[in-house]
């Protein structure tokens, strides 16, 4: 059949598989956004010995839809004296970068030998940092365009917060590239499949050393001397990166731009209806994207020890995708858990942490990794 052949020509195949992947991932992630709002309310309630939403649907599971309908039906009020253009585009600017990050995340190994990543960029990590930093413009513009003091303070806080953590965020992942030798997120995951996760290097395909166990199927489990040494800078990177990610996504210990108690909601004080919802959902989308980046860089992406990848059949491909999203959900739970545990940092404390602690530690960490790599290769 000629019409079917057309679909399998390389270019056309690439176009329709990419479109399909985009649609599925977008649908999946937007559903996750809605349900992470539900999870936030439920987790906060459980931590505070409350019940949480339980009226709409079983255990409140239809609550996100009810929230959405309510927000859609509200009046989209624009206060007088705002800069209408920036006021209108700011919510989209907060939402879009978070979603764009998803394009380069490998959310699975492969399915029917189609790689499970929307865009397999060789500069994947650069894309992540370039795009996710744009999210701050939404907040700054919203704060400025609102023509109101509290949003303005929120916008100012957001921009100065960004310059204090962005450096350590970028520097903390440099050791990963030094070890893996690539900026491609898919290859970073593949490295972790071969050598163990960055935060837990306890299995490997090659090498050997401490405590080696070979299973019947031929996979080897144990501690590789080289990976165990490199585990030290990796843990430092992991801690700095995850803390910087909290600041990047405006999550609790660093949610200074919002600060309900101090700034009455900060940058989105003047917003209502769906524009407010876009800010609100954008924060959760950024959280999911951030969790995806953490999982990909440090927690082994879609890999689990002794689970084959998608080249062994579509079932394992689906297992890999499930693994990735399960890990993302676990990291999101950690985000929520931290939010309902820690109080907000004071503003000067955040700047102090960013400039005096994390920046230096991340910088030293790079030299530590370089020294270790030089020692191991000599």
């Amino acid at each position: 059949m000629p019409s079917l052949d057309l679909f399998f020509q390389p270019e056309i195949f690439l176009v329709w598989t990419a479109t399909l992947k985009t649609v599925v991932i977008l649908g999946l992630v937007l559903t996750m956004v809605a349900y992470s709002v539900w999870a936030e309310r439920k987790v906060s309630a459980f931590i505070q010995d409350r019940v949480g939403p339980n009226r709409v649907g079983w255990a409140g599971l239809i609550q996100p839809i009810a929230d959405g309908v309510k927000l859609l039906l509200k009046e989209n009020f624009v206060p007088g004296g705002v800069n209408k253009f920036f006021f209108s585009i700011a919510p989209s600017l907060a939402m879009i970068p978070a979603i764009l990050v998803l394009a380069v995340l490998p959310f699975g190994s492969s399915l029917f030998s189609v790689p499970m990543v929307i865009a397999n960029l060789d500069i994947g990590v650069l894309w992540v940092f370039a795009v996710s930093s744009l999210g701050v413009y939404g907040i700054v513009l919203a704060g400025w365009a609102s023509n109101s003091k509290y949003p303005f303070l929120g916008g100012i806080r957001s921009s100065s917060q960004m310059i204090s953590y962005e450096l350590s965020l970028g520097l903390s992942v440099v050791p990963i590239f030094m070890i893996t030798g690539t900026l491609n997120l898919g290859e970073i995951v593949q490295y972790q499949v071969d050598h163990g996760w960055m935060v837990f290097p306890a299995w490997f395909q090659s090498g050997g050393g401490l405590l080696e166990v070979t299973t019947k199927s031929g996979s080897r489990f144990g501690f590789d001397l080289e990976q165990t040494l490199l585990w030290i800078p990796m843990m430092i990177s992991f801690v700095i990166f995850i803390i910087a990610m909290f600041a990047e996504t405006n999550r609790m210990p660093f949610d200074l731009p919002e600060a309900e108690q101090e700034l009455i909601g900060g940058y989105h004080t003047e917003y209502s209806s769906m524009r407010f919802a876009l800010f609100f959902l954008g924060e959760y989308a950024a959280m999911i994207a951030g969790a995806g980046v953490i999982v990909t860089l440090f927690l082994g992406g879609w890999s689990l020890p002794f689970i084959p990848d998608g080249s062994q059949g579509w079932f394992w491909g689906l297992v890999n995708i499930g693994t990735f999203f399960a890990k993302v959900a676990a990291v999101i739970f950690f985000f929520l858990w931290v939010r309902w545990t820690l109080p907000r940092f004071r503003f000067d404390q955040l700047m102090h942490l960013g400039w005096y602690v994390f920046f230096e530690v991340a910088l030293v960490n790079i030299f530590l990794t370089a020294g270790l790599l030089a020692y191991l290769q000599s």
Partner: protein
Amino acid sequence: MATTVQRPKLSLLERSYFPAILGGLWITLQHFIKMLLGQTKVTMQYPEQKWDSAMPEWYRGAPTLVKDEHDRERCVACQLCEFICPPRAIAIKPAELPADDQWSKVEKYPEKFDIDMIRCIYCGLCEEVCPEQAIFLRKDYSITGLTRAEMVHDKEKLYELGGVRNGLVHKWNEKK
């Protein structure tokens, strides 16, 4: 004289926030898990669960009119409750009983008996002042309505809420 409060000296580990952060995370996790396992006592889920069984005998809820075991209305429209009611929630329109009625010796009955539940303060003075044991405060506390008119309990509604009460004094029965 001003005194200087000595700040406690923190060790490097304490200043790094990590012990405190991990301790806090541990506490919140315990609360979370206890709630998941259903070991935490939580608020009563109001519309499904109610206080009713725990309500004391003397609870002062909505005032109601009662009938006795002969299905005869107790109220003789003396209007004492209307006069004593502090917020003037009660409005009674007395009327003569027809002469051929079995209980015509009672002389009066309430043709209209309205209690405005927006005004009622549940003080119980109407029950206390009633010489006929006709008005009682019951345990109904959830009195709601969509309009003001709905919130005025008329005679029919009051008897429906009050129902029948046995063992009341029948002081008029002997004087036939």
